[in-house]
């Protein structure tokens, strides 16, 4: 008889267990295996989601368990969607999301392209470049706060060196026009290596013979780049964008450390605002509606994006 994983598993099953499951159908055995996973999924994902949806139609406050809970219909949703401050938080999130992804993709791909070339010290440089993403966001946030310090911060001195400006004449974290960029810079510094690694995997998956065939056809390097490299790395790149997009939509720790959402509410991303509503103001019903709106937004955008990704893969 041919040896297969199933026969190997059957042979490895202890006789006592084998006796017990002998009379069970394949479907029943399948349920025994899948059941715990489904139970866990229902308990830790689906039930909380349904519960949150339920809470979003109430005025429940988790810090007032004894208070009578009233169903308020769509009032929480209406309040959120008509609140201009929340739309400003959405704008801040969109700005952060857009620019971090653009910069990380551009720089990450460029770094991957350079690192992919064979040169001395290649591995060392790769290790050095990926160091930032290994650090804790709290640590990164704290030391960038020092770097941005107007009087002693290295960042201000570097900018001053190149522009001739007084280092203490601008405040990256304190000025309304600069603070949104300060968080973009830090996130880009920290997470570009992640995009670079994914792009590197894409670049290394391109077989050499394709380039060799292009060389034989006398295709220029420029042409090779646009007709071979970019299309073949594109699915990897899109995957990196998906990961970074979802992550940055939920961005919290790094920005809280850097600016606390300030100055004013300039860098108060939706996740920071949501946390304040849920766990500082304790407006649980309202915060649940807020979370559902954000969930639907991310889920909707991610679904559209995954469809586009699949189309690119099929090409």
């Amino acid at each position: 008889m041919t040896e297969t994983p199933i026969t190997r598993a059957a042979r490895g099953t202890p006789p006592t267990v084998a006796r017990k499951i002998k009379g069970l159908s394949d479907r029943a055995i399948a349920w025994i295996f899948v059941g715990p996973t489904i139970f866990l999924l229902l308990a830790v994902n689906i039930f909380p989601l349904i519960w949150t949806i339920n809470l979003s139609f109430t005025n429940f406050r988790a810090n007032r368990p004894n208070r009578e809970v009233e169903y308020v219909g769509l009032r929480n949703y209406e309040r959120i969607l008509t609140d201009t401050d929340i739309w400003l938080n959405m704008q801040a999130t969109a700005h952060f999301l857009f620019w971090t992804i653009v910069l990380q993709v551009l720089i990450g791909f460029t770094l991957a392209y350079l690192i992919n070339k064979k040169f001395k010290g290649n591995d060392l440089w790769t290790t050095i470049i990926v160091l930032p993403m290994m650090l804790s966001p709290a640590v990164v946030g704290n030391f960038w706060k020092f770097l941005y310090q107007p009087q002693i911060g290295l960042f201000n001195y570097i900018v001053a060196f190149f522009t001739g400006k007084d280092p203490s004449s601008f405040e990256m974290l304190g000025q309304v026009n600069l603070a949104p960029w300060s968080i973009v810079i830090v996130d880009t510094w920290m997470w570009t290596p992640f995009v670079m690694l994914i792009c590197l995997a894409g670049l290394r998956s391109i077989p050499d013979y394709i380039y060799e065939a292009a060389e034989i056809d006398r295709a220029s390097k420029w042409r090779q780049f646009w007709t071979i490299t970019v299309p073949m790395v594109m699915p990897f790149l899109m995957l990196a964008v998906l990961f970074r997009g979802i992550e940055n939509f939920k961005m919290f720790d790094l920005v809280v450390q850097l600016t606390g959402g300030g100055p004013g509410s300039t860098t108060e991303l939706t996740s920071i605002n949501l946390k304040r509503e849920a766990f500082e103001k304790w407006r649980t019903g309202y915060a649940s509606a807020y979370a559902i709106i954000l969930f639907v937004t991310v889920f909707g955008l991610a679904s559209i994006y995954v469809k586009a990704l699949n189309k690119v893969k099929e090409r």
Partner: protein
Amino acid sequence: MKYSKLTAVSALSLATAGFGASAQAEDLTLCWAAWDPANALVELSKEFEAQSGHTMNFEFIPWPNFADRMLNELNSGGNLCDLLIGDSQWIGGGAENGHYVKLNDFFDAEGISMGDFADATVYAYSTWPKGSENYYALPAMGDANGWFYRKDWFERDDIRAAFQEATGRELAEPKTQKELLEIAQFFQEREIDGQTVYGAAIFTERGSEGITMGVTGALYPWGFKYENTPGSYDMEGAVNSPEAVEALEFYKEFYETATPPGYTNSYMGESLDAFKSGQVAMAMNWFAFFPGLYADPNTGGDKIDFFVNPPQNQAGSTLGGQGISVVAYSDKQDAALEYIKWFADPEVQQKWWDLGGYSAHNAVLESPTFKDSAPFAGDFLEAMGAVQDFWQEPAYAELLLAMQKRIHDYVVADQGTAKEALDKLIEDWTETFEDEGKL
């Protein structure tokens, strides 16, 4: 509420049973903020451990996370803390949500009189509803927002002459808020001993309570009121009065013209750092830090002096400080109450002040030697005579966060006008009180 009554009854029965001979030694945990007075309390509590046989453990949380951490603990019914020195604004929520044990019966049984403590502290730290005689805490740590300055700079002839020339008056402790700003502006970007120094460190922190605690230091002296009539929640014309608008504009001008660069998200720690590093001539902070500042080898001693938050239209200081409560979820309430009984003793209160804590006991405050017992003692007494506190409603966190946002948006982010900021604040607060069913 039933649960609170039960705990109060059990507290009374335990109290009447007598604590002198403890049935068993307990491991008590006291929760508070991590700051200088907490260290003094650890020292003080050693005496309680020796007397009672109980062991004291301490859970001290850094200020920026203190409210978050402790309110989560209380809201989840956690029993991490047997005793909690909670912020004054938590008293409403602590009482109404059943987090704190009501102490009236215990006080009666043990002969602890609230009349023995300073009125302002009893009102602010112990009672709910305000002005009632329902006590949920014993005043533990009196505190207010005050000022300290570089006395050595203020006494230098060259600086005094320059100030005289610039303003036409003597350089001295400010008598009004406007004088305070004038002095801060004078020092702003001034060269002293080859270093550029700045006017003053004020509170601008966004995340917890910083900028609210700072700006109220200007609002109260201008005559700011939360309501037209106490208890009415009628805020229009009070919160956004012309005086309030002027005070808010003043604070913004202070921030823009007299603070160090990058001072956009600063609270207690940053204020202390700025002063101790010789960066600023003056700084605002809580009296609780003053013993440590005075003892500092570099900027303390002869180099430092203190003053009360200056008046403008009236005297007014932002209230700090806390009361000590027994947590309703603790299963060691008898030992916790024993600690409170011990702590209320006048002799212990005197030691508390001697170690660097701010006693609110009249026996300490009214002692003829009190004013001269520390360079800031007289200022403390004066400040406590004109303190005002933020809302102490159960929804205080929501009210506070709204104010943090509106004030930071205006003062630091330079958005809109002072009147608009205060109008929006009234809208936010109205919505909160409507949700609470109070409007």
